[in-house]
């Protein structure tokens, strides 16, 4: 993993911008996210801060990896009309990612926000650390890893995001969850809001970076005044909304849906750490009463870096959306209909024979391990 530190203060960032700039915030969904300086969440924060200061943000673009030049080109092509309007792009990506973005958008103001300091990994606490610093940093190799805060102090950089300097005052609204009142950001995604308040809502097809699809139906909640149950992942919070996240009926339904999902894949062989296993344990389900659909499709090992095991796929569609929205490649898609639905790569080719950019966006998003890296350490060590 590439380790970067923030090189611009918020004030310096603003000095690079004009009030009439049409701004796009661009971020990778990989290294920079683990460094705490990018990803959809940070992009949202930066958007709020800049909007509050009167700048015009016309879009946010999350990409799996900006350091793959062809993916950057692909994103430009896929969203041509919005990029045509843009005059400035703020890049939340490592320096080589920045170079690619700059090369592709050479007619625009492309703003770099970080300095890349070396290669690192995740510590046992899940925090990014620097193990192999670049020479100019004057630091030696350190197998245990330097804490980023220390490196930043030493090099005069920032290890935290822009909001450390000034908290954005986003507009909050009141919602009532299970009888208690909470304040959440206006217009935010209900599932996101509930999760951040600490409610454990099961969800398998939702991922913050991706457009919601409402496929798995696990996040169903009750909302006062609305008929039936609604998937929180496809609902926006509204002022005064009254939500019930859990009652006997909802839990009963969630258990049944989980049982159905378990019948869809050979769940016993799933990695324990997979999201699906987590929810199965959480809802204390030991067995599915439904018959396991015996899928005996061949495992696709044609890619150099990941395998695809359709037999444990639950058709959540995250990989498909990740491939379309984060990589921009659209390699993966659904094929067939109804209970015969499957995920295929480019009209059913082995994935190794497609234009797959090996960006791993699909692998990172898979909640069951149906897409899994061939080398476990591939992602963390780089």
């Amino acid at each position, binding site marked *: 993993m590439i380790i970067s530190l923030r090189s611009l203060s918020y004030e310096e960032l603003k000095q690079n911008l004009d009030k009439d700039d049409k701004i796009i915030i661009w971020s990778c969904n990989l290294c920079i996210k683990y460094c705490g300086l990018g990803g959809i969440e940070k992009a949202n924060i930066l958007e709020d801060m800049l909007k509050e200061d009167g700048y015009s943000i016309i879009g946010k673009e999350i990409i799996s990896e900006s350091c793959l030049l062809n993916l950057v080109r692909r994103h430009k092509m896929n969203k041509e009309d919005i990029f045509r309007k843009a005059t400035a792009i703020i890049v939340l990506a490592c320096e080589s990612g920045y170079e690619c973005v700059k090369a592709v958008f050479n007619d625009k103001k492309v703003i770099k926000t970080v300095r890349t300091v070396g290669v690192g990994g995740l510590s046992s606490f899940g925090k990014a650390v620097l193990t192999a610093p670049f020479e100019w940093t004057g630091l030696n190799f350190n197998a245990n890893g330097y804490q980023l805060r220390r490196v930043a102090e030493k090099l005069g950089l920032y290890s935290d995001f822009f909001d450390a300097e000034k908290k954005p005052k986003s507009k909050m609204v009141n919602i009532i969850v299970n009888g208690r009142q909470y304040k959440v950001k206006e217009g935010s995604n209900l599932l996101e809001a509930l999760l951040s308040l600490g409610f454990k809502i099961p969800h398998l097809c939702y991922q913050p970076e991706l457009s*919601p*699809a*409402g*496929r*798995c*139906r696990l996040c*169903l909640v009750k909302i006062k005044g609305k008929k*039936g*149950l*609604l*998937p929180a992942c*496809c*609902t*926006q919070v509204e002022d005064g909304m009254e939500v019930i996240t859990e009652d006997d*009926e909802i839990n*009963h*339904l969630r258990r*049944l*849906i989980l049982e*159905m*999902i378990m*019948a*869809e894949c050979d769940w016993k062989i799933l990695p324990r750490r997979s999201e699906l296993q987590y929810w199965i344990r959480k809802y204390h389900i030991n067995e599915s*009463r*439904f*018959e396991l*659909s015996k899928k005996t499709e061949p495992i696709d090992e044609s890619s150099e870096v990941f395998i695809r095991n359709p037999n444990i796929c*639950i*058709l959540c569609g995250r990989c498909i959306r990740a491939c379309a929205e984060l990589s921009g490649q659209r390699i993966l898609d*659904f094929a*067939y*209909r*109804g*209970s*015969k*639905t499957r995920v295929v790569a480019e009209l059913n080719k082995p994935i190794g024979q497609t234009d797959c950019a090996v960006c791993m966006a699909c692998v990172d998003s898979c909640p069951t391990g149906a897409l899994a890296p061939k080398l476990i350490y591939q992602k963390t060590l780089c």
Partner: protein
Amino acid sequence: MVKRINSPEDLEKLRNEIIAKSKAEKHVVSVCMGTGCIALGADVMMDALEKEVEKHGLKGKVEIKKVGCVGFCEQGPIIIIYPEEICYLKVKPEDVPDIVSKTLVEGKIVERLVYTDPNTGEKIPKLGEIPFYKHQHRLLLANNGRIDPRSIEDYIAVGGYKALAKALFEMKPEEIIEEIKASNLRGRGGAGFPTGIKWETTRNAPGEPKYVIVNCDEGDPGAFMDRALMEGNPHSVLEGLIIGAYAIGAHEGFVYVREEYPMAAENISLAIKQAEEYGLLGENIMGSNFSFKVTVHRGAGAFVSGESSALMTAIEGKVGEPRPKYIHTAVQGIWNKPSCLNNVKTWACVPLIILRGAEWFRSIGTKGSSGTMIFSLVGKVNNTGLVEVPMGITLRDIIFKIGGGIRGGKKFKAVQTGGPSGGFIPEELLDTPVDFDELRKVGSMMGSGGMVVMDEDTCMVDAARYFVDFLLEESCGKCVPCREGLKELSRILNNICRGEGKEEDIQLIEDICETMSEASLCALGRTAVNPVLTSLKYFREEWDEHIKDKKCRAKVCKALINYYIDPELCQACTLCLRECPVGAIHGDKEHVHWIDQDKCIKCGTCYEVCRFGAVKKISGEPIPPPPKGMKPIRKRRE
């Protein structure tokens, strides 16, 4: 080149001209050219008719009209002779000379071609007096049979586009919406959503352009009311659409027609072209400053693509699957623009309401459901076909008065309303009025108007299985409850029909149904459980018999029946023995026949061929042992 209509006065003038011209003709012979009648040979008969009329020198005195489906398809090919309204059924080319020489020349009736009441034997020549038609209330279908759907002049002659003139020149868009709201018109596509409210939502939704769409996907197997309207009176749908577009503020519309309906697509396309030529569509309609254009979109018809969001994604050129719509498609539909989708019949109601007023429309039907509804009545009734009835009529009246009761004197068992995901309604609820809310209360729905009648020979477990299997094929597979639920239901129900049901299956079925109806993404999954739930609710004994006694009382489930030859009735004719494909039957000319149950594959051939009714189907009872030794036959004396 036709003359453009530039004002309501132009339209009236044209109407009078057309009427004056047609007065000269004495007889109008309407020949049904609906898909059903053509399949039965209407086109060949039509050719014969044209030649015969010419031969008698009647050209100019008799007008032959090719009309759209008149609803009694099973009795096709059908001819209706106006002004007497004589209706001839099952007309073959060889009947044509009689029709021309007797009826058209001499004014007499050809008795053998008229409707005969199966109960009284009475001959009924007049269309409106045939029981099938007598109890109907035809508003939308009124002109099917009277006008040539491919002639805009015919439509104008019967008052067509008058409502459009009124809407454009005498009413403000808001007034039209108020009128539709006041009429209480509810969507005929299934859900019964108030049309006026939907229009208002789209009108007030932010965003331009706005779109209006006709849903002619009609995926229900056996349903053809939308097709009949589109084929038989396309201008009425188009006129409704134009009025709606004006009220909503749309300048572009789509007609979504399923692939399997080539004639519907052709007729509506032609109607659009004609309306454009007359200035009733396109720029500055009828000289007003309202402009509107319509495109026909042919869809590859999966059942689910009739669902509103799926249909709109299909029009956008993507795979037609439902999407979560927490913002209603009326607000964000095609290309995320406000889009108002209505069923064919809903649009066709609009001109009637505008012309005759909301109050008149409300006077037909019930408080909650006004107007009429078209059903396609099929199954085990004597008269099948398209029936248009006022809302509020009881199911009993439709089945027994219009449908003429159960075929072959059998006993009624259930009626399914609302298409493949409608519930089964039993005998004791036959007095339920046809009404959106009442049907929902008994576990079924109005749907888009399918009505399947089942008699005592229908197994209600098997019927539920059949529809689950149908919907399993139609589910788009997007959401878990529907995709997995239907798969599991299908597995369990097939097991039960195979005699492998377990008692705990019922609980499992109920759990699946609950999940599907509460948690599915679109209405397909949410309503797919209706057949199963109503079958369980009203016909529970049959389920218990299947599971516990391994008995199918209707003797439908193959695994649960056996064939057996009654030794008292067998005449040793050897017919069954010769026909049995697996040689399971023993016997000879002198001896009673018997079936080797181990060999029998239950194909039913022996049952079909035996002329003495000696072969019996039995279920849930012990099979009498084969006769000991060979039992000599006691021939019956004739």
